[in-house]
């Protein structure tokens, strides 16, 4: 777990009545409250369980965000449905125009994967920023996206690259565009009986470059602010396509659309990168503010991260 506990507690959804939070001697427990454990072998079985068990059930994937929340008793559920043993949710599929990551594929499987590095470079570049290698050995891509933490890496990449999230429920399958998936703090468009099955990332063609910049006080912490950027250059190095995802600058991961539009159509060498950075944060109204950094400071850091990431992405695209 990386997020400072204080900022977890600030979220009103977690101001729940404490249940069994203290032991009989008044000592704060660091153990989850009791639950029943279910380990379905198929997605159909999992969604049926979720539908039958109702609101008291929660999907468990890698558990690297959920288990600390349970241990701190910031959350409790009567049932955990462990989807990590379902074969059809695991693995990476490469098609002509996209790469589909099964929900319970662990982060470490994207790290050092040559195919991921060549087809969706932003995924390969962002993964080392997630926690520590021990966390990446257990944490999953689908778990991170479903958890919808605004300071997490995969949600921002999914949003920036226009990924598509496939969800399964007893009513069937549906595809949710990333732009409609992140609806609030730790809140996604998934229904309580839906399981995230996979995330499909488009493969960019052309002369493209990608970069990630984060500012964190210690390696592996959630960043105070960060940016993930992709650019495609056309003839004369004119920016044809620009995607900017913002990390830690609002209640959800964000897309810096105004800054993207400011960059597209201009030759890379003529771009005022600092101005694009400022455009990325100017309109933000719900920037977190706490003892680690005020909202104004985070916006300044965010603008600098966008500027630097864009610069690096353009350099990579220029090299071809």
């Amino acid at each position, binding site marked *: *777990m990386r997020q400072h506990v204080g900022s977890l507690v600030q979220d009103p959804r977690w101001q729940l009545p404490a249940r069994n939070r203290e032991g009989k001697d008044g000592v704060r427990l660091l153990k989850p409250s009791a639950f029943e454990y279910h380990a379905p072998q198929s997605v159909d079985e999992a969604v049926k369980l979720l539908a039958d068990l109702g609101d008291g059930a929660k999907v468990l994937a890698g558990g690297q965000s959920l288990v600390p929340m349970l241990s701190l008793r910031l959350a409790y559920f009567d049932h955990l449905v462990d989807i990590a043993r379902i074969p059809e949710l695991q693995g990476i599929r490469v098609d002509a125009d996209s790469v589909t990551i099964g929900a319970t594929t662990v982060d470490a499987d994207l790290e050092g994967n040559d195919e991921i590095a060549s087809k969706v470079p932003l995924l390969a570049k962002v993964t080392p920023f997630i926690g520590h290698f021990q*966390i990446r050995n257990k944490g999953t891509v689908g778990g991170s996206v479903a958890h919808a933490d605004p300071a997490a890496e995969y949600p921002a990449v999914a949003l920036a690259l226009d990924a598509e999230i496939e969800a399964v429920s007893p009513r069937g399958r549906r595809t949710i565009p990333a732009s409609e998936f992140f609806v609030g703090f730790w809140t996604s468009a998934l229904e309580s009986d839906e399981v995230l099955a996979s995330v499909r990332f488009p493969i960019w063609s052309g002369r493209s470059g990608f970069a990630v910049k984060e500012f964190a006080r210690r*390696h592996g912490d959630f960043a105070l602010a960060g940016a993930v950027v992709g650019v495609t250059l056309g003839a004369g190095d004119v920016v044809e396509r620009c995607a900017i995802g913002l990390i830690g600058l609002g209640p959800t991961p964000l897309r810096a659309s105004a800054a993207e539009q400011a960059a597209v159509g201009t030759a890379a060498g003529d771009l005022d990168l600092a101005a694009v950075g400022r455009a990325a944060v100017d309109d933000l109204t719900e920037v977190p503010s706490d003892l680690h950094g005020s909202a104004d400071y985070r916006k300044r850091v965010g603008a600098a991260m966008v500027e630097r990431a864009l610069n690096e992405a353009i350099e990579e695209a220029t090299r071809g």
Partner: protein
Amino acid sequence: MAEAVVRMKINGEDHEGRVEPRKTLADFLREDCHLTGTHLGCEHGVCGACTVLVDGRAVRSCLMFAVQAEGSEVTTIEGIAGPDGELNTVQEAFRTAHGLQCGFCTPGFIVSMTSYLEENPSPTDRDLREALSGNICRCTGYQGIMNACRIAAGLPTSGGGDH
């Protein structure tokens, strides 16, 4: 809540136990298997003292329930040294370079670094620092630990760790 039967191989030996689903792998190792070398510092995934190998990969055993490890092969700090008690390269280096003081965090560092160096046999100094970032030590100031890791990785050591 119903207890579950869990079976797993720990340090090469078969273990079976009846556990509440909410029992973490760390507590199962310590309380049910009496393998108390796995230490619990923060119990929410920050400090790394509880690091063990599950199916060959280093993970935090406080962020995993014992029921999730059903059928897995687990290696704890007790399984790191040779069967005759011979220290492995990382353990030997921690002894040589004073990579510990109170020793509480040491099992997590040793298990993490042993696993890391198996997968990354030629790290840079910076790689080692990143690899260590998931383990917290409150005594040493890390210089002895860094030197131990440098020795284990075959890198030159720097002054400051010896005292």
